[in-house]
């Protein structure tokens, strides 16, 4: 029925299946929307946040999706700036994932703030000293860039493409895409960094605080670095999931392997940098404030040494080693294991840099504070996931996201 909209030369599941799929995911989405409306109408008392956990699940989700969406800027950077031409075969998907991640981040922020209707004060009454101001500006600008990158893709839809104006617009936009990609990469280096700065500048929170250069704490660079390393891993992961769901090969192995290899080296260097940072923080920064590393990892039911080891070694060094070895990335299983670990690792890092910062007592007579999100928080956090799945579903069905699909899956 919708065959007129489906790109030529590809096979798609029957519309009925697709609608059923949309309905199931849509139900989850509606659950999230319900929770979101509750939060807006009744206020943030719907959450389990409190005065110790002003930042909680949502801010983590924000930081995590932005890190995972980092595949868009870094792949774009590699393709348009460095000139890794093979990556054109995955850039569309990276852009789409980025678009989903960033729009989700903005949505979550709109739920997270206590006065959403005053959200624009961040621009109007901007405080240039605040990392969050930097985040807001760069995030919005980059989201605009992602939208611009995503639009030509929409216009490539079979029906839209028939309109000469759209066809030409799309073509022209492709021509100048390098400019946008460069802008996007530049903006991303900044806002990924400023997200790292959000915690790093908190000199009242010895667990999060890092020294640095000029106004930027080390976390500024570590966040950019880790997003560049793990974002593409997430792009690979989502591509692999999409291939598994559609039961089709969509991107050629050499493309994936190239991206995996670059990610591997990024991850390895990140691992080294993060280890140095942790060591310096543990032996110089924290002790100067009167803290031993053990103060941060003992005396509470959750945050033990395991979290440090998991983040840095299991989800940092291990996937890095897998991805830099040819055998590792050529083996389908080990590749998937590596990209999963990397995605978990960066998410865990964001968790630690948000939630554990809040949990650690700073005043000597204060106590560890634990937190478990309310269902409204969980639902609103799952909401973007459902939204992402739906947008991927629709985009994949109707837009030529994967340039190699036709070649890899010839229709008889």
């Amino acid at each position, binding site marked *: 029925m919708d065959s007129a909209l489906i790109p030529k030369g590809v096979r798609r599941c029957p519309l009925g299946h697709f609608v059923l799929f949309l309905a199931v995911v849509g139900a989850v989405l509606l659950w999230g929307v319900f929770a979101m409306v509750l939060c807006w109408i009744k206020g943030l008392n719907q959450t389990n946040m409190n005065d110790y956990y002003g930042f909680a699940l949502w801010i983590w989700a924000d930081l995590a999706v932005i890190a995972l969406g980092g595949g868009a800027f870094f792949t774009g950077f590699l393709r348009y700036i460095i000139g890794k031409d093979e990556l054109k075969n995955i850039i569309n998907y990276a852009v789409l994932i980025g678009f989903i991640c960033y729009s989700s981040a903005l949505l979550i922020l709109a739920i997270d703030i206590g*006065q959403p*209707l*005053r959200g*624009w*004060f961040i621009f109007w009454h901007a405080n240039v000293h605040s990392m969050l101001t930097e985040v807001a500006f760069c995030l919005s600008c980059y989201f605009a860039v992602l939208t611009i990158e995503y639009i030509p893709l929409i216009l490539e839809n079979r029906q839209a493409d028939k309109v000469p104006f759209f066809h030409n617009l799309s073509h022209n936009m492709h021509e100048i895409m390098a400019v946008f990609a460069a802008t996007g990469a530049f903006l991303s280096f900044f806002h990924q960094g400023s997200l790292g700065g959000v915690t790093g500048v908190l000199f009242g929170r010895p667990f999060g605080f890092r020294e640095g250069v000029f106004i930027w704490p080390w976390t500024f660079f570590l966040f950019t670095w880790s997003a560049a390393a793990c974002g593409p891993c997430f792009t690979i992961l989502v591509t692999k999931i999409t291939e598994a769901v559609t039961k089709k090969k969509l991107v050629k192995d050499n493309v994936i392997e190239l991206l995996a290899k670059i990610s591997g080296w990024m991850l390895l260097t990140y691992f080294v940098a993060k280890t140095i940072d942790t060591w310096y923080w543990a032996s110089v920064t924290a002790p100067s404030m009167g803290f031993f590393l053990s103060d941060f990892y003992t005396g509470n039911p959750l945050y033990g040494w395991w979290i440090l080891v998991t983040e840095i070694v299991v989800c940092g060094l291990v996937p890095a080693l897998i991805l830099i070895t040819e055998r590792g990335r050529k083996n389908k299983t080990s590749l998937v294991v590596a990209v999963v670990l990397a995605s978990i690792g960066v998410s865990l890092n964001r968790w630690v840099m948000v939630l554990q910062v809040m949990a650690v007592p700073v005043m000597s007579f204060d106590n560890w504070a634990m937190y478990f999100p309310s269902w409204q928080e969980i639902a609103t956090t799952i909401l973007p996931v459902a939204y992402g799945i739906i947008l991927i579903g629709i985009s994949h069905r109707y837009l030529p996201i994967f340039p190699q699909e036709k070649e890899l899956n010839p229709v008889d």
Partner: protein
Amino acid sequence: MKIDRRSFLSFIIGGAAGTALSPLPAKLTDDLSIWTQNWPWTPVPEDGEAIYADSVCTLCPGGCGISVRKIDDRAIKIEGMKGHPVNDGGICILGLSGLQLLYGPTRVKTPLKKTSNGGWKKISWDEAIAEVAENLGKLRSEGQPQALACISGSDQGTVPQLFRRFMTAYGSPNYMCVPSSQDSYSITLKLMQGAQASAGFDIENADFVLSLGSGIIEGWGSPVCMFKANSACEAKKGKVVQIEPRLSNTAAKADQWIPINPGTEGDLALGLAHLIIKDDLYDKDFVGNNTFGFDDWTDDKGKSCQGFRQFVLENYGPEKVAETTGIDADTLTSLAKSFASASNPVAICGRGQGKRPGSIHEFIAVHALNALKGSINRKGGVWAVPEPNYISWAEPETDAVAQKGLQTPRIDGAGTEKYPYTKSLLNRFAEVVGSEGESPVKMLFVSGANPCFTLPDTGAVKAAFENIPLVVSFSSYMDETAKAADLILPNHVFLERYEDVPPPAGVNKNVIGLSKPVVDPQFDTKHAGDAIISVAKALKGSVGSAFAWDSYEACLQETMGDKWDSLNEKGFVVPDTAPACEKTYTTPSGKFEFFAAGYEQVTIEGDEKWYPLILMPYDSMRLSSGFIGNPPFMTKTVEDTVLKGNDIVVEVNPLTVRESSALFVKDGDYAILSTPKGKATVRVHLSEGIMPGIVAMPTGLGHTAYDEYLAGKGTNFNELIGPVEDPASGLDAAWGIRAKLANIAS
């Protein structure tokens, strides 16, 4: 014009783009944010002329001066009054919360009558007065005026005295007051000094304060005055030693905290006396010239009697006292030395806020210790503060019915041969009235008191209330007693009424204050003084003529006489008379009298076999445990180791749990606390600041009345304890009760 698809689309897209570029979205966005800044459901307090109105707080017997900040006719903040002799600008947490009582939802807004189904019906004041008068008239015509009883929160001041006068004119001896440690002190002063007085402690000028469980900075006596005195004492490098089993705030602030086996405070005082006498450290001048009974003596019949010296030397040796009190002999010795070597030492007792009376044994032992050092009626010591004498009304004339009624014995047995100095024994009330059968009390007035919450064995008290045919409450608030009443004649709250404020409790300040209306009455309430005058007038006859005043205000003005003007102007007067009685003693010997024997300790209720632990109450400034229920602000400050959700938290030493076979709990876990009187589910807070074997429970929680900010929070300690009569005074001397803690499942 033909509209095709293309032009339609162009119109829509163009229109949208045009709107987006117009100022409209910006204007809307701006308006929305302005709306969030002025949400109609967030109140905006009206501005107006700011003025201060001075008055005196009567929420406790502290008598603090207050300055109420007003905006037009609204009171917006209560502050301490600078320059007031009691509190000089300081103010306690309850006083600060006073406006929540004034404007709070627990106020009784009109006279109420209980309906047959337990609900309330609004009635007019005329109806209310008529109804009370009618019932009183009936009782009188039946020749049973003594079946009217009255419970008053205090004995001092014109309003309690008006109630007392009413009782006399009406013909009932059954006027009872809510007891406190001051009752025990009064009896002690009567016995040892012959004085009709209350005890006033000059902590400010003492250089060594030995507190046997008194919460000097937890609301004992006049709270703010005591706080200030304590700070002043410390500023002069005075020492405070706190003796009690729990690390209370007073203990925490004291120079030394010495835990003691509870209930053995009297033995400690006598043990210290032993050491002081043995080492010849007592004030020989005072003891030699002003006391009687120190050395052995011979009575009129020629019988030789043991003196105090011999008595303590024989019976209270340090080893023995160390064993009883649990305080080692060395500590006892050094404590005795410090007390004796101080120039102005003073010993004080009355546990916690001093709301509960105690055993006379303990009080006379402590008072004897003061006498040994001559700390009686002198700077830095304890003063016998005479009862205020500014109320000098002519005795009411009584008719035959009244005279007959007054001849009947008091239902509580106070003032009898057995307890000659005891004025009332409210602790016997529940037992006397009983829960079934005919009650000797047919009608009851309750004013300024909430016995259905504050009396021990609250369950029995409530049952007794149900057994009384007509209970009339004069409470301003829908408290437990008001809820149990049949008629409520709501009083103005303190910020709406005139009332004299007798000198503050527990201190030697001779100040009479005047509480003045700061705002107009908020509801259809009536001054309790006016209400009782109206009731009397409605009864006519001799009762009516005993109340010749037109109104309470006229009565007050007349009573105060020449003090009225300066009272009205300044808010307080300091009478010219000496701050306390002369150094004369009106005992049979004309001297301060020591007692050697004849007074015993009380044993608390419960069998150790079944109840291995001891449950003790503790008072806190953040919990109002008396007649006034905790306002929301105060409840907000209560720590989560005292109240968590609706659960009361009890303090227990970790050792108590470790050594118990029935209790396996971590900090914050639930347990069942049971005593011979009752059972409650509690949470356990493991604290090192309490003696093993003791369970400490906060007082002031467990209200069943009031609003959602107070009702249902925690457990009322009084439900878990019953009164234990002191053999010498008949007053309740229970300082705790045996108890058991067990896991929920067992």
